[in-house]
């Protein structure tokens, strides 16, 4: 879709508008990716647009922000383009350790997702 008429238009737009467009497409794209039923997609998107009578900023928002603050911080840093950190340079020991650590952490989260303790013993 973008290829047909959008690309020429995008080139004329200022940079920040291009970023905004990308962000919106990404946000909606993830919703489409997660849900396989159209009714759920519509419900989630309408909640995102604010049709569920929830205020944009309340105590719940603050709670989610501060509890995930470390993760958000790491994500922001990791998303920044930086020539020095990219793989153009040699693969050093630091890289190895870092990749190993990331892999290890990912596995722990995956295993935890299957963790299913029962409160009452099932007979």
């Amino acid at each position, binding site marked *: 879709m973008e290829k047909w008429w959008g690309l020429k238009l995008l080139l004329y737009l200022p940079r920040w508008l291009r970023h905004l467009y990308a962000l919106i497409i990404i946000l909606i794209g993830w919703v489409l990716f997660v849900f396989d039923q159209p009714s759920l997609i519509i419900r989630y998107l309408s909640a995102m647009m604010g049709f569920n009578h929830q205020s944009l900023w309340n105590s719940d928002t603050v709670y989610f922000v501060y509890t*995930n603050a470390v993760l958000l911080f790491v994500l922001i840093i990791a998303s920044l383009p930086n020539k020095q950190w990219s793989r153009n340079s*040699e693969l050093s020991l630091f890289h*190895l350790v870092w990749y190993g650590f990331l892999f290890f*952490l990912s596995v722990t989260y995956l295993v935890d997702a299957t963790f*299913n303790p029962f*409160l*009452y013993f099932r*007979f």
Partner: protein
Amino acid sequence: MKQKTESLLVLGFIGTLFLNSLFLFMLPHQRFSELENRYLQNDPHLTWDNLLFKKYAEEAESFVTDHFPFRDKWVWVKSTAEQYSLQQENNGIYKGKEGYLFEKFLEPIYKKIQQYTESVTQFASNHPKVSMTFMLAPTSVGLYPERLPWLAPSYPQKKVNRFVDNQMKKGLEFIDGFDILSPRASEPIYYRTDHHWTTCGAYLTYIAFAEQKGWQSLSQKDFLIQTVSNSFLGSYHTRSQFNGLSPDTIQVYTPRDSIPTKIYIADTNRTMTSMYDTSFLAKKDQYSYFLGGVHALMKSLRPNRLNKINY
């Protein structure tokens, strides 16, 4: 140098995968997980039916996840990682103040609650000859919202209790657990690491319930209070895997004027000679010390001592 580190990366990755698979097949497979209190998936059966109806794929997947090598250690690492960031909850359990863990309670679906209360009132009206009372007790998060982490979302359980009270006005006698427990909230009514109330909490409720019904209740002096465990880490701890918690103590209230009781458990066809099963104190699930845990049907048998009953 570059060549070496590249090959190290590849070898390391493949080696890790290989080692993990090796452990998966070589380590002895447990049938029952004490940590998760459930039976683990046993070997998947490869039959034509199983393959066709996706059952084999599901069984194989749960087999690999259930017997993942060092599973409990992986779960513990994730919990520690979450705790080192500013995360206040894990797997639906909040880490509250003063060592209290709370199960997350959010706004329930009131329609469902209405259905539940209707079932209960229906049950009561089906047995008009039996006098019944319904008491709805809160969980620890309802009684101690001030101990929740900062700004943690929580729905007040009092609202739910009031709703149930209104629903039951037509059918059943309703006692609100908050009325009984709120005045004594400073006492250790709930375990810090488990969803049950302590024996102390049960005792306070017994007193209030007896008072409501006009029974004569035993005072605390009439009980021999013993501590049977100092190392109890309950369901909330199991689910959240939080570290650095001080364990709970389990107490037993034995009436000094004790009556021998036998408990017959229908699903295992066993008879216990007391209401407490001390073998559970050595296992992870120490709470099953009380009545030997949860069973489908239990009958408690007591020798007839009608002449001693005061109420």
